[in-house]
């Protein structure tokens, strides 16, 4: 069953036309890689799905689990089951590790006009113990301010925070290995594999093609705001896509 579907999405930053008719579909349980160079429109795609502004989606539709979420505000998209681990981690650096994790739990019906509850068809919500099992380093540093963590630990916390969202059905990871040392990249990748093995649907945005293809079932390649290639991992590996990618 299709969980997320983008159909001919055009998105703009002010007058700049960034996404020029992007279409893609993700089935439940899949791990999809969205590849492309810097400035290809990967982050703009994530932001368009999440409803964060800018960019402004001026035409095309985004459907999630059967609902047209194109114009939904960000908090409603999240409540419906879309979790974003944004580029640059975006931790609350003045808050402790524990407080960062608590932030995913405090949205409630009193604050939000929830259009619909997520169906919960993805993986069940992760408890704090499971998360600490996945990222043991975070438990050691639970009462430390998140701004004092190392780059790798910050990335783990950013992922853990989004995994703590209730009713998460789709995880969007925007360049989770960016700026990390090679051994840390390994450990973050392994965590992502464990997460996807539990049945969560994942959209992984990467410049690092080798890491991305190790984890993914299928991949899309974005260049200058247009989808230039789509295929299974085997097909992507055999295709000569160097002109669109940093290999």
């Amino acid at each position: 069953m299709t969980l997320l579907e983008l159909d001919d999405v055009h998105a703009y930053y002010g007058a700049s036309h960034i996404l020029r008719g992007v279409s893609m579909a993700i089935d439940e349980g899949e791990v999809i890689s969205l590849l492309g160079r810097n400035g290809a429109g990967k982050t703009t795609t994530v932001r368009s799905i999440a409803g964060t502004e800018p960019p402004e989606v001026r035409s095309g539709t985004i459907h999630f689990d059967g609902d047209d979420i194109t114009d939904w505000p960000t908090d409603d998209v999240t409540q419906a089951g879309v979790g974003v681990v944004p580029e640059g981690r975006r931790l609350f650096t003045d808050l402790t590790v524990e407080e960062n994790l608590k932030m995913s739990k405090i949205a409630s019906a009193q604050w939000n006009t929830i259009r619909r509850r997520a169906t919960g068809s993805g993986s069940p919500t992760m408890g704090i113990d499971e998360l600490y099992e996945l990222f043991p380093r975070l438990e050691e540093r639970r009462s430390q301010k998140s701004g004092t963590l190392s780059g790798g630990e910050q990335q783990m916390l950013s992922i853990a925070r989004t995994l703590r969202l209730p009713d998460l059905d789709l995880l969007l990871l925007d360049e989770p290995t960016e700026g990390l040392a090679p051994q840390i990249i390994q450990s973050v990748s392994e965590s992502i594999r464990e997460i996807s093995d539990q049945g969560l649907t994942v959209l992984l945005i990467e410049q690092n093609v080798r890491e991305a293809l190790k984890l993914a079932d299928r991949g899309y390649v974005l260049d200058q705001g247009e989808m230039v290639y789509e295929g299974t991992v085997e097909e992507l590996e055999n295709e000569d896509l160097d002109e669109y990618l940093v290999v």
Partner: protein
Amino acid sequence: MSLVESSVQFLFVALSVASVYLLVALGLSIVFGSLQFVNMAHGALYLIGAYVGLIVGFQVGFGGLIDRYGLAPLGLDLGFLAALVVTPIVVFVGGIAMERFLAKPLYDRPLLDQLLVTFGILLIFQEGFNLVFGRTGFNYARPDWASGPILIPAVGSVSRWRIYVVVLALVFLAILFAFYKYTDYGLAVRAGTEDTEMTELLGIRIGRPFLLIFAIGAAYAGLAGILGGSLFGVNAGMGFSNIIPALVIVIMGGVGSIKGTTVGALLAGFVFAAVTQVWPSMATASIYALAIVVLTIRPSGIYPTGRVGQ
């Protein structure tokens, strides 16, 4: 009068001045820090608090339009304690209205636009109050439990009301701190101060916690209106003459920092009280001089939060 007695008296004069500044500056600081909104109309809330307190607690022979239409003396005459309880609630509601109708449309505008519009609103309130209530000043008639001296053994007499003002400010500071530290709303506000969009990516409609903290800041300013009005007298210019030092305190302490605002208010209170003793006409100006010194040493404030102006 012994040296100890005059020192302790000075201490409580300084602390009570600092308390009034603090209660006004807290709301200004939080809203500036979390919503990136500089709200000079916050001074109007202080002004409104002072007049609401008078009307709730007493019957006052106002001038202006009220006198002309034969409504004076006006007031519910419920007493001073009732004024202390009811006024913050009334101004809390006023704060909600101000956030929805004044602040919200201005959130995405540049600081200068916010400054000009909200300053204009403050002036409109000031002149409106002059028109409605008359240009004369008014005083709080404090009951016995809130006036006169307290005799402290080995020290001497200290103004009872100034002690209460300081205690009230401490209690409300503690309440705000606990709200920030231990409630979900407080957590959301702290997180939202750092990264609003990220809170939305975690499913939180951050406008609600921000509205609540705005209204709490308003209630504090309303309470300060009564405390300040009872110490320094009530007139329509009091909002104006309080909000500028409050803004200076916020900037001096570090925008959005409760700790910084508290330290800034204490510094301002002591400098103000000290200069009042030796050169009263320069008392207000001394706060700006203090700010120049502090900001020369620490350009981003005493506890920099490092987000405003980026």
